[in-house]
């Protein structure tokens, strides 16, 4: 294992794109916090602020028919995979226009069009799914990649180990992306793991694994591209430990008693957005007006999305029992009403 760090000056247009992607996530979530505080959206809200480089760097390397599995801190993944900010916000509003018609909420975003398979609120629960999606591709002879994002808290779960073993044993085309932000809710990595080098754990399963500076989007993208290419060309599962940090609390209910403010501010000095901004400015790639245009564009996108969500329609209660079972008529033409069981009970 080596730690991947970025070197060199990026291509301006591409760097600007990455900057925009990270900023879109940042602004969307800042808006979520605002809407949450205004009680427009409810439930648990876990924001990704500080970790944007991970989703931005990895998503960049995927093809449209690859699959993505994520956790409950997945607004950024969904957005950068191609789900519109409007559909994400409308979902949090519980509106019919939401990407899951109000059934999922913040923690359970799904989108078939972009092969975005959640949105899983059970820590490590998505890992076996990713293994299975990859297995399906392998068995069908498709050159697709499944990327699975999960936090370092998942590493303590049995499903992590079962999934590593299966993926390696069967040499499946899956890229595991461990977002190591050092805290599982309030439990620091060192207080939950005997071995805190997560890439080393993956390597123990004979999986190619690297630790990556997760605050540096260029480093993330470079490592992800290398890994995705290897997975796609039949190299079996790969693993990235993305060393990152969340600047905000675990959720809106978290008083953050478990870490010092000085630690947070120290990490904020490596804010992934500021970091790329700095790199670009130093290379003369980010004139003042370019930045101004970029932020204005992103603000406009988010503002439009809020308007879309705000003006959406609540999913009707008459639709409550849909999607518990499939409408079999749509699948088999049988139409025997088997899916209506709940309506009677």
């Amino acid at each position, binding site marked *: 294992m080596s730690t991947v760090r970025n070197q060199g000056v990026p291509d301006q247009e591409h760097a600007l794109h990455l900057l925009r992607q990270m900023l879109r996530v940042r602004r969307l979530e800042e808006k979520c916090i605002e809407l949450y505080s205004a009680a427009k959206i409810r439930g648990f809200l876990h924001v990704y602020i500080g970790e944007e480089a991970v989703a931005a760097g990895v998503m960049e390397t995927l093809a449209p028919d690859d699959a993505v599995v994520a956790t409950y801190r997945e607004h950024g993944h969904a957005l950068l995979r191609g789900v519109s900010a409007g559909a994400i916000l409308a979902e949090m509003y519980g509106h019919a226009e939401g990407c899951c018609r109000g059934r999922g909420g913040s923690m359970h975003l*799904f989108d078939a069009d972009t092969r975005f398979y959640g949105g899983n609120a059970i820590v490590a629960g998505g890992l076996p*799914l990713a*293994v*299975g999606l990859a297995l399906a591709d392998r068995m069908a002879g498709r050159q697709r990649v499944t990327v699975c994002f999960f936090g370092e808290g998942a590493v303590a779960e049995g499903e992590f180990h*079962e999934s590593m073993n299966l993926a390696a044993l069967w040499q499946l085309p899956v890229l595991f992306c461990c977002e190591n932000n050092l805290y599982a809710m309030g439990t620091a990595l060192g207080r939950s793991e005997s071995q805190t080098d997560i890439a080393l754990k993956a390597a123990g399963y004979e999986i190619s694994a690297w630790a990556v500076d997760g605050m540096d989007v260029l480093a993330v993208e470079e490592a992800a591209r290398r890994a995705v290419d290897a997975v796609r060309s039949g190299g079996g599962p790969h693993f990235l430990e993305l060393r990152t940090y969340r600047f905000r609390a675990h959720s809106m209910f978290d008083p953050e008693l478990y870490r010092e403010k000085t630690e947070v501010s120290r990490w904020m000095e490596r804010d992934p957005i500021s970091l790329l901004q700095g790199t670009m400015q130093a290379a003369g790639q980010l004139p003042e007006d370019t930045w101004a245009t970029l932020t204005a564009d992103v603000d406009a996108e988010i503002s439009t999305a809020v308007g879309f969500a705000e003006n959406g329609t609540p999913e009707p209660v008459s639709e409550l029992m849909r999607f518990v079972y*499939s409408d079999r008529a749509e699948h088999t033409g049988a139409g*025997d009403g088997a899916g209506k*069981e709940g309506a009677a009970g």
Partner: protein
Amino acid sequence: MKTTYREAMRAALRDAMQRDERVFLMGEDVGRYGGSFAVSLGLLEEFGPERIRDTPLSESGFVGAGIGAALGGMRPVVEIMTVNFSLLALDQIINNAATLLHMSGGQFNVPIVIRMTTGAGRQLGAQHSHSLEGWYAHIPGLRILAPATLADARGMLWTALQDPDPVLIFEHGSLYNVAGELDDDAGAVEIDKAAVVRSGDGLTLITYGGTLPMVLEAAEQLAAEGIEADVIDLRTLRPLDEHTILDSVARTHRAVVVDEGWRSGSISAEIAARICEQAFFDLDAPVERVCSLEVPVPYAKHLEQAALPSVERVVAAARRAVGTNG
């Protein structure tokens, strides 16, 4: 043709694999060992290790992988040795398989079939002997099947594989060696309706799976006493076909539910409650239940048998229901 429950299951698997190349079987020892109950014996040679896929002992991992494969367009059949072991995969079954369609607003089907053995009676001790299918029947989003007959052992799998939603099939361990005649052209069966497998106006005996043979034997004894019973094989525990139950109770006015699960919070509790909710004024006697005693199933034969429903207990409950018990 003469066959066994085990052979009927195997024929169903072979048939499914031949019909649809997306179908594959995955589980512990399904390949080289031939299946822990020999259901898949010989299929590895026929279909190869990609489609008859041995897994490590990691229920959550391979059940979850099955769910992922179903999401990815395959039609996995996942075998778990016993329902007790399926508890290691509860997260995947309940938090993923049962919820993904709904949470995704109808975008993602999970067309997986999960097969497992259930039930006691073979002196295997508590960790191989429980009947937890009633628990699974609690979960919206799952379809719960319990084939009790050769025809259902042969036919339910194919229908289950056509279902776009997750289906769990519970095979009672005591049924595998049951032999009998099955039509040569036996094939897919519907999985929505309970079956009235014996008719009578004296009372309704309701059961499913491994206790069906016992209940039929009890019905024979009762008939000898002049009590003719309707015997209902539920076949599907969820969605529950309550119409067949209620129609029968409306005729017989008496019901005994036989369930190898524990009484507290069991499927028999659900059935008794529905009869009370919807057919209370049809009843001439309280609904009776014959369940396992509320004890982890013990090893010693006499203790195990004492814990389980028996012909004698079914007959006694039926007599109480019809008021011939003195």
